[in-house]
Each structure stands twice: as C-alpha cells, then as structure tokens.
C-alpha cells in the first residue's frame, strides 16, 4: 500500500510541472496586455510601456517563466497587477465560496441522482425510468445560465423568497448564508445530477446483470441485500470516479453559475483575471485548480482499494 501511495504521489509531480509550462505559455500566446487594460484605451503608448516595464512584461519569456516558477517553489504565487493582493489571499477569499457551492451542489446532485439512478436501473423501461431518463436529457440540455436566471426571476424577483443573487458570508449567519446559496446550488446541482444519474443507472444495470448477482439471488439473499451489499457497492466504483471528476470541476470554479448569481468564487475570479489579462492571478489560480484536480483524482484512486478488494495492494496489477 505504501508503494502504491508513493508511486501515485510521485506521478503527480511531472504532471504538475507540465501544467506550469502549459499554463504559462497560454499567457504568452494569448493576445492582449494587462498594461493596456489598466491604462485604458485612451492611454498614450509610453504609459502602457511604462507599466509593462514596471511589471516585468518586457522581459524575455524564459526569464518570466523562471521567475514565476522560482516564486512558486517558494510558495509565492504572485500578486494581482490590479488589486495588488496576493493570489493566495484572493483565492483564500474566493475558495470557501466555491467550496460551499460545490459541496451543496454535489449534495443536491447526489440526492437527485442516487435514488433516481438506482430505481431506474432496478426497474428499467418502467415509467419512472423513462421519465427520469427524459428529465435527465432535459437537464443536460438546459443551459446553466438560463436556468439560473429563471430561478432568480421566480424565487428572487417574483416570489421574493430568496435573494436574487449575491453572496452572504457565513459570518453573517448560517441561515442568511444558506439562503444566498440555495438557488446557485440548485442550478448547478440539477445539471450535475443528470450526468451522475446516467452514470449510476448504467453502472447499476451492468452490475445487476452480472453472474455474481444472479448467484446471490439464487442463493436466496434478500433483494435489498443484493442491491445494497452486492450491486451498489460495485456500481459505486465508476460512480465515485465521475463524482471525483465532478467535484474537481466544481472546485475549479463554475464560471457561469458564479457570474449569474454574482458569487465571489474562484470561477469568477479566474474569469475576470483572464479578461483583464491579470496573468499572475490567472496562472496562479489555474495552477491551483489543476493541482486540486490532480489531488482529488489521486484521492479517488486511493479510495478504490477501499471500495474494491480486487484493487487492493498485491491483488491487482491494474495500476502497475
């Protein structure tokens, strides 16, 4: 197990190194200039040139990369050209918002996906299955921004049950905080649930048709026990993978949802950074998101042996 852990942890390093190169190259090739953005369209060229010099943007690319990577190695992700706040401070403020949104959305997605996916698999081609599948397609097809705006107009502007966008931090009360997060979590969770439900249904159908399930049934194991102890446990393995990927996406910031609901999360932070060509912030966050993605997947991989005895150390060669 220790070897497995070390091997998986070490394999993350070249991945992250490759990511730093790719992320940095994007800032080189993307047209636009933070100095021009800050100085404004009416700024004379010498003003823009002065800002570029001040920020080191007139240095060769390899020098800029070396400085950036050296800073990262010492834990310094840089600071915003505009707000002059450090990337870590900006992310430190934005990440809890995104984390809360991601967790609530995933909870909503799981609450919808797990029962509907299981029932659909247990009763394939039933009215429930057909209805859930159709609802899933509709959910997948509805653009997230449209659903968000509809929710805002209905529950915010018309019924006035919930705030029409904006974020209330936990420091101002759990109730107020949750009220501000319900609509975005529903908008995001509904979309995520459709994917999760389809994966779970497909996984469950595969497992329910497997020989060992038939054997369990033949041995007289109760239907509920077959479903929970034998079928679900195996179907959860691919489902966990999808869940991990979904969580990675959500932690990376859900740009559209955060923009529509005016949430000061990571997605909006990175979007504004890219639009303003605030390279330090953009590459810093993208690197953190990539790292989070890699680590979440690492955790999911490490959970496999717990869920599947076949993957346990010494019993499987699939990861070697």
């Amino acid at each position, binding site marked *: 197990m220790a070897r497995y852990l070390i091997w998986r942890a070490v394999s993350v390093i070249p991945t992250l190194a490759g990511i730093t190169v790719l992320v940095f190259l994007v800032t080189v090739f993307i047209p636009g*200039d933070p100095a021009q953005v800050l100085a404004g369209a009416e700024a*004379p060229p010498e003003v823009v040139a002065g800002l570029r010099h001040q920020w080191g943007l007139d240095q060769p690319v390899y020098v800029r990369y070396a400085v950036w990577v050296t800073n990262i190695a010492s834990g310094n992700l840089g600071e915003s050209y505009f*707000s002059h706040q450090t990337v870590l401070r900006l992310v430190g403020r934005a990440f809890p918002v995104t984390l809360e949104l991601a967790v609530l959305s995933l909870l909503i997605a799981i609450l919808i996906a797990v029962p509907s996916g299981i029932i659909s698999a247990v009763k394939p081609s039933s009215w429930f299955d057909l209805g859930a599948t159709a609802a899933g397609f509709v959910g997948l097809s509805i653009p997230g921004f449209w659903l968000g705006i509809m929710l805002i107009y209905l529950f915010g502007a018309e019924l006035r049950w919930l705030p029409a966008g904006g974020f209330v931090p936990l420091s101002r009360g759990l109730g107020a905080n949750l009220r501000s997060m319900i609509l975005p979590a529903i908008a995001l969770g509904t979309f995520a649930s459709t994917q999760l439900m389809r994966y779970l249904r497909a996984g469950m159908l595969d497992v329910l048709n497997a020989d060992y399930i038939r054997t369990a049934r033949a041995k007289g194991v109760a239907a509920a026990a077959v479903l929970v102890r034998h079928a679900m446990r195996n179907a959860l393995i691919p489902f966990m993978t999808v869940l991990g990927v979904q969580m990675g996406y959500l932690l990376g910031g859900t740009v559209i949802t955060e923009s529509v609901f005016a949430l000061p999360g990571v997605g909006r932070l990175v979007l504004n950074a890219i*639009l303003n060509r605030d390279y330090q912030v953009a590459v810093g966050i993208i690197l953190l998101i990539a790292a989070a993605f890699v680590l979440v997947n690492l955790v999911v991989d490490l959970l496999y042996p717990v869920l599947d005895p076949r993957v346990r150390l010494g019993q499987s060669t699939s990861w070697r």
Partner: protein
Amino acid sequence: MGTRPGEAEDGISRRKFLSQAGLAIAGSAAAITAEALVPLGQSSAASAAAPQGGQPQRGGTLTISQSVDINTLHPWTGTLNVWKVTKTNIYDQLSYQDPTTFQVRPKLARSFVWTDSNTSLLVALPSGVTFHNGEKLTAEDVKFTLDSIRDPKVGSWLRGFLAPIKDVQVLDATHLKIKTETIENQLIPAFTYVDIVPRSMGTDLSKKNPIGSGPYKFAEWVPNDHVTLERNPNYWNEAHAGHVDKIVFRPVTELQTRIAQLLAGDVDMVYDFSLQEVPRLRADKSVVVAVVPPADQMFVVYLNMRKPPFNKLQMRQAMGWALDRQGFVKNFLAGLGRPDNSPFTPQHWAFDPKTETAYAYNPDNVAKLVEEAGYPKGRGLSFSFLVPSGYPEFKQLSTMVQATFASIGYRPAIEEVDIAQWAARLNQTRDFFAAVDYPPRGSTDPALTYSAGLLFPPNPANVCGLTPEMIPGYVDEIRKGATTLDRGARKAAYFNVQEMWLESLPGPIYCHRATAHAHLSSVNGFVPHPAFQQSFADVWIAR
C-alpha cells in the same frame, strides 16, 4: 415615488433637458470662467437634487449594482467608468461638470481667474478642508497632484489633459498659480478628472487605500464582491456632505441578475445598463428610470488610415454614408440616441448646424464612392470590423454597416475578440481596419474634446493614424478655439474643425447615445452624470 423637482418619473425628460441645456449652454466661452466664480453650494445640481417629497433623511446604506468590478485603487491611472463613479465620492476635484446643465463649475476650488496677461490661472481654495487621514488640504497638495500627473514616470492617462501647464506655483496655503503660455480652455474641464491627493501619500497609490477629502471615505474593497464607502462626517462642504451612511458598490456581471436584484429590492440602484432594457423598466412602477439624454458618448468608427482601403478618402466617406443612423438608434438604442455627424449635439454651443446633413444613410453613395476608390461592386475590397465581446451595440452597428456593403457586392467580416485584445490591437499593434467605439466628452468644452482621447488629436497615439499634415489648418483651428475666451471666435474655429473633419473623415461619427440608470422609489436626490463623474452626496433613502 421619489422624483426630483419638475422632473418626470422616468428621469430627466428630453424636453426638459433640451430647454435647460439649451439655455445654460447658450452663453459664451467666458461663462466657463465667469460661472466658475459661482460657489458650489449654489449650483443647479444642488437644486436639482433637492427632493420633492420632503427633507433629506440621513442614514442607511445605498447599495449600487454595477456591471464590472473596479480594477485599481489608483486615482490617476484607473480608467473604468465604475472607478470614476466610485472615486468621485472619495476625492475632491478642483472643478466638476454640472450633471444638469453640463457646465463646468468649481468644486474644491473657490474660483478660477486668468491673470498675468492670460498666462496664469489663479486658483483659490477654501480653508479648513481636511483629508480623510486628518491632514489639512493646502495648495501644496494641489501642486503635488498636478505635478505628479504631469510626471511621465507616474504613468497617468490624464497627463495629456494637463499638457498646457508649464509650472504650478504655490502662493500661499489657499492660492496657487498655474502657469501656461496663454489661455487654455481645456484646463478647467480637465480638472474635473483630477483627484486631489495628500502629498504625504506619494505617487505609488495603487497599493494604498485611497485617502481623499471627499464626502465619502474608502472603507474596503473585496475584489469581485464589493467596494464600501463610509460617510465622511467632517466633509468641508455641508451642502454636499452626504446623507447615506454607507455606499456599497456590488459588481454583478449578468445584466438580468442586476435587474432582478433591483426588482427584488436587494439593491437600491442599477447604475448604467443597456438602453434596450429602458422601456421594460419604465413600465415597472416599482422602479424609477433616470436617463441622461444623448450628449456625451458618441458612436464612432475608427478607420485605420495607415493601410488600404481606408487610406483612400472615398472609402472613408463611403463609411460615413453606410449606416442607417435612425434605424440603429430606433432598433438598438431603444430610441435613446441621436443621429449626428458632430461630436456635439445641437444643445452644445459649439455644434455646427451644417454637420447635421453632412452624411446620412445612402447605399447609392456608398456604391459610387467605393467604385471611385477603385473597387467597383466591391471587387478587390478587403476589410473587417474589429469588435469587442460584451459590447452588443458595437456589433449591431458593425452588422448594419456590413449589410450596406454586402448590398453593393462586398461583405466585410466582423471579428469579435475580448476587450483586452481589442484594445491592444487598436493601440499597440494597429492590427485592424475598422472598429466601433463610443468615446466620451461630447458634452464638455470642445478644447478638451479635441485635445484628449485617441480620435481627434492628430498625434502618434491617434488610433486612425491622423497626423497634423493630413488635414491642413485643422491643428491651427483647434488651437484658436482652445486659446481664446471670445465665444464668437471659438465658435467659428470649432465650426471649421467640424467641417474639416467631415471632409477628411478619419473616423465617421454616427450618433450619440443616452445612458440609463434605475433605482428604487425610496432613493431620492439622484442626478445621473453624463460623464460618470457621479456624486452620491445628495442621494438619500426615504424610510
């Protein structure tokens, strides 16, 4: 419903604006300096802001939704309108543009007087003004501010606005002399952009919290979430000391969310939104829509004269005839615009009536001029429009011009890029053919209109590539208008400038656009500013 005196429920009515502005702007150029002697407390903005439904009430929080977040805390380098709106309340400026009459008046300054045979502008300041950090504001601080902005190392985009200044001399704590070579009419309007900073702050202001002397103090900026200002209890000018305790600016990117927030009562005001939403919001009785009539922002198309096809006069003139201005205003600005060929509207004293009919929509003229330029039926023609994403009106205008050219045989492409790339290609690489924009300053003094920005001044920064030699006499006429107080002479000079522009047409001017804001009926005393130098000092919330 809280409305201002004599004002329609939907804001400043066009008829009222025309009568007010026409009377106010019909004076002479000297009026700018004469009017400048009127103390701020007697300005028309103050009277316009007085509430109709009772005495102003103190207290409460004014929450304002804006389309984007600020991107700096530096008063002299930030250029976004949202930052102008915010910092106007933190800092004092020597002068301000009256939002109702559009005249420039003293704000921090008590008076402006040209002396020394019109080679010095004497500025008198009030005593007893303190900055938010408790320091006393003196003429030394004003000199520090002006000198810093003029310093190329500071990198302020306002440097060109103050270019005529040769020296700033402090006479005593409340008087200073601004030395020039002659009268410079651009200076007093330019001072509306200049935020006075305590000299103890230095010039590296982007890393410090703003310290001004305005009616509101900076409290905090949480990027992507809010900017909070708090009332300055020691503001020197009691007439504009601020009523609400706090102002919170919230950046909300999505327009429909902003509107829903207003309708839900979650914010008090939506500042600056798409004109297409005006009819819908006007129909909603729960909100008040305030519209600044078309005067300041003008739709233009920058034509790159450095390369074909717009190095040819006929092609530029063809662009002048290519837009159905009325159709654009009606369909895409909700009727809240005015077709024009001049940077000024008829209410402005410098408006040249001859420009009114200079160019209109005429596809036949377009076809004829394109043929004269050597591209019969568009053969051999190659150009495109560069538009920034997030600015639908730019694309709509470009699409209408595209359709006109398509009707004569050539369909130019429309290339949509993000705003950072758009600005870089216009200003740095010059990699464009035609690009729509709506530059400001159509409502201010023409001396500033023609000396600032990237369209009119024929200097190396000109987007179109305009040089002084390209339009003979153009620079001389601009200087004539900028350096005399004789209104008749100024008018004649600026008429010539407008006509020269239309003959050479480096960038056709198509129309002016209004700006729109909406607020809850509990918000009183709001007078929208044409150039986003928006004061909220007179705004109060009825409980």
